Structures are given as C-alpha cells and as structure tokens.
C-alpha cells in the first residue's frame, strides 16, 4: 500500500483529540473526526438496534386482531407504533454516520442484517404479549438506559427519547401478566408457559457472556458501551426476580438463588449453543419474520409511490403557478 504523505501524522493528532474527548466524557458528534473503526462499530450497533425495533413489531403485531379487549388492543397498537418510531429514531441516528437508510432497509429485507435474537421466537398465546412487555421491553430498558449515556451523541439522544416511551411498554406488559396471574387456573398456566418460553431468550438479549464478547473491551474504552453484557444481565435478573415473586410466577431456573455475599440473584448456565443458532438464522421464526417484513414492504409500495407522485404533481403545479 502506498503511504499517503502527511496522513499518518495528521491521523495521530486527530486520534489524540478524539481520545481526549472520549476521556473527558464529551459526546462525539456527526461532524467530528472519528476513527474509521469507531464509525464502523457504531454503524453496526445502531443499525442492528434499529432493525430490532422494526422486526420487534412483528411478534406483537401478530396479536393485535386477537387482543381480548378494546383497552388491550389500543395499548398494543400504541406500543407497536412506538416500536416503529424507535426504529426511525435510530435509523435517523445511523444516517448521521454517513450510511444511507435505503441500504440499511435493503440489508434487512435481503436477510443480511442482524437483529435481536429474541424476535425469532414465536408468540403462541395472549400471555406472550404480557411477557414480552414485561421481560423483553424490561431487558431493553436496562440496556437502553445505559446506552442513553453512550459516547455518540445522536445515538444517546435517540436512547433518551426511547427510554421515555419504554416504561409504558413494560408496565402494560406487566399489567397483563399480573391480571393473568390473578385469573383462572388456565390463565395462570398460560402465563407460566409463556414465562417458561421467554425467560432464557430474554437473558440472551444482553449478548454473549463477557468472555465471548471480543468487541466489548474496545467499546467500553470508547464509552460506546458503559457496562458489560454480564453486568447488564445481572442487573436485569436482580430487577425481575422480585417482580415475578410479586405475582407468584416461577422463573424456570432451578439454580436461581439470592447470594447474600454479592447481593445478586445467581442464575444458571445459559444455553449459548441455542443463542448462536438463532443468530445464525436457524431460530424458530427467522424465515417467517423475514418473509413478513418483505411482505409488509411490498404491500406498502403503492403508498410510497402515491406519495411520490403526489409530491411531483404538487411541485409541477407550483412551477406553473409561478410561471
């Protein structure tokens, strides 16, 4: 490779300025110089996060028509609409890194993009809507509260906006769970079954264990991440156990017990083989989600075309009026 004259020296100075900003806890803004790798890592994290919000609409959208009451239906529609908004906030943040949203959409549609493994599990009963709000949005809140302090300004600001909305998601889910827990034996059983299916996948949402997370050290040093995967997972478990106890639901882990010394709830070994299979595309619903997302995109084409045609017509009209 031909060395570019001056480039190394310039780069060193720029990099020093960047590192100094990070060390001072300042936010990095779109027009600031940043190492190519920082840009790449953020593009990867943010686009995966945006995709997760979008795909996350599918398992719940699946139950809107079957919500058991008008109140539940209104809540679920509002929640799913929020998730669409979350996807848009983060796509907009990702664009500030110089990527085109169009390319990101296409990566999601052609299956080359990654998104959270949790959304590749099926939603089999109404109780799943409660458990997703409680555990899945609950885990997302733990993760996103910390991301709201991430070093990249646009990402942090999107997270602040999202965190404000997530509490509604979690509470509406927990309310469904508490209602079912206080219901008939069949309702309790349905809830317990949903918790049994979602507990471990929810723990996997925090990503691989720290010892298998090669990017973590760098991301922590750049303050992109502020806590490790295992720290966040532990925080989530500590928060959730009392919530399960309060409604008399059992978390499906025989090794779950309070550790007086560490003040943490110790939990059993996660099945990482399952996690990596789902990430690779072999989860129970990977294909279904991708197909549903593509169908939604195709079905919406006429709306996008109509909006474009209307805008062009209006623009022409303004031109002739001006002439």
């Amino acid at each position: 490779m031909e060395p570019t004259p001056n480039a190394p020296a310039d780069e060193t100075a720029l990099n020093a300025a960047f590192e100094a900003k990070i060390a001072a806890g300042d936010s990095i803004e779109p027009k600031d110089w940043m190492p190519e790798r920082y840009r790449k890592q953020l593009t990867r994290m943010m686009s995966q996060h945006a995709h997760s919000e979008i795909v996350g609409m599918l398992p719940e959208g699946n139950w809107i028509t079957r919500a058991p009451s008008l109140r539940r239906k209104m809540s679920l529609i509002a929640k799913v609409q929020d998730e669409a908004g979350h996807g848009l906030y983060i796509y907009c943040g990702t664009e500030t890194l110089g990527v085109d949203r169009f390319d990101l959409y296409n990566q999601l549609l052609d299956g080359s993009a990654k998104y959270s493994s949790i959304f590749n599990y099926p939603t089999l009963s109404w109780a799943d809507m409660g458990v997703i709000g409680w555990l899945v949005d609950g885990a997302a809140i733990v993760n996103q509260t910390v991301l709201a302090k991430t070093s990249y300004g646009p990402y942090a600001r999107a997270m602040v906006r999202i965190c404000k909305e997530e509490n509604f998601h979690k509470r509406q889910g927990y309310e469904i769970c508490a209602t079912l827990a206080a219901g008939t034996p069949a309702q309790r059983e349905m809830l317990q079954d949903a918790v049994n299916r979602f507990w471990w996948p929810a723990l996997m949402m925090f990503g691989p264990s720290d010892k298998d997370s090669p990017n973590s050290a760098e991301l922590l040093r750049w303050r992109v991440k502020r806590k490790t995967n295992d720290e966040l997972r532990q925080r989530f478990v500590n928060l959730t156990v009392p919530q399960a106890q309060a409604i008399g639901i059992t978390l499906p882990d025989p090794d779950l017990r309070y550790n007086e010394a560490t003040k943490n709830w110790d939990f059993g070994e996660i099945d990482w083989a399952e996690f990596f299979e789902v990430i690779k595309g072999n989860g129970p619903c990977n294909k279904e989600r991708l197909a549903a997302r593509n169908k939604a995109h195709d079905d919406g084409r006429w709306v996008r075309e109509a909006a474009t045609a209307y805008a062009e017509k209006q623009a022409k009209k303004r031109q002739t009026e001006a002439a």
Partner: protein
Amino acid sequence: MSDSHWPLWEVFTQGAQGEPFEHAGSLHATDAEHALQNARDVYARRGEAVNLWVVPSTAITASAPSDAGPFFDPGNDKAYRHPQFYKVPRGVKVF
C-alpha cells in the same frame, strides 16, 4: 425521486407555548407537508409538541467542529460580559 430516496428533513419541536424550538431528529418525506405529517407521527405521539418546524437538511449551515476554538474565541475571552466581572460594595444586594 425513488420511493426510498425522499429528501431528508430536520424536525424541530416546541414543547409548550412560549418555549424555544428544539431539534428532535430527522426524517424522510416527499415534501414539506408530508414531512410535517410524518414529524407529528414520529416525534409528537405524546403531546411532546405544540408546534413543529420541518427544514430541508440541505438548508442548514453548521459551524465546523474543527474550528470550534477560533470560531467561538471572541466570545470566550470577554469576562466583562458576565456580571461576576463587576465588583459591588460589600453588603449591597444588586439583584
């Protein structure tokens, strides 16, 4: 203008009457009217705004972070623009 390459708009929201407008984020839309409607759906689902501005992103000129120092210097070295610069006899309440 393909269906996915709509222009980018910056969205500003006013949280309450009398407050300043604040940058909320951006979105893609075919024209200003469409951008306003999208901005309402994306950035004001919970009464976060009583007014919205949408501005084509290309219409914004921003200062460059690299000359932030020299550019803002004229404002940084004038301590006499701050009330603390001025001495007041002991015991007198000025405000």
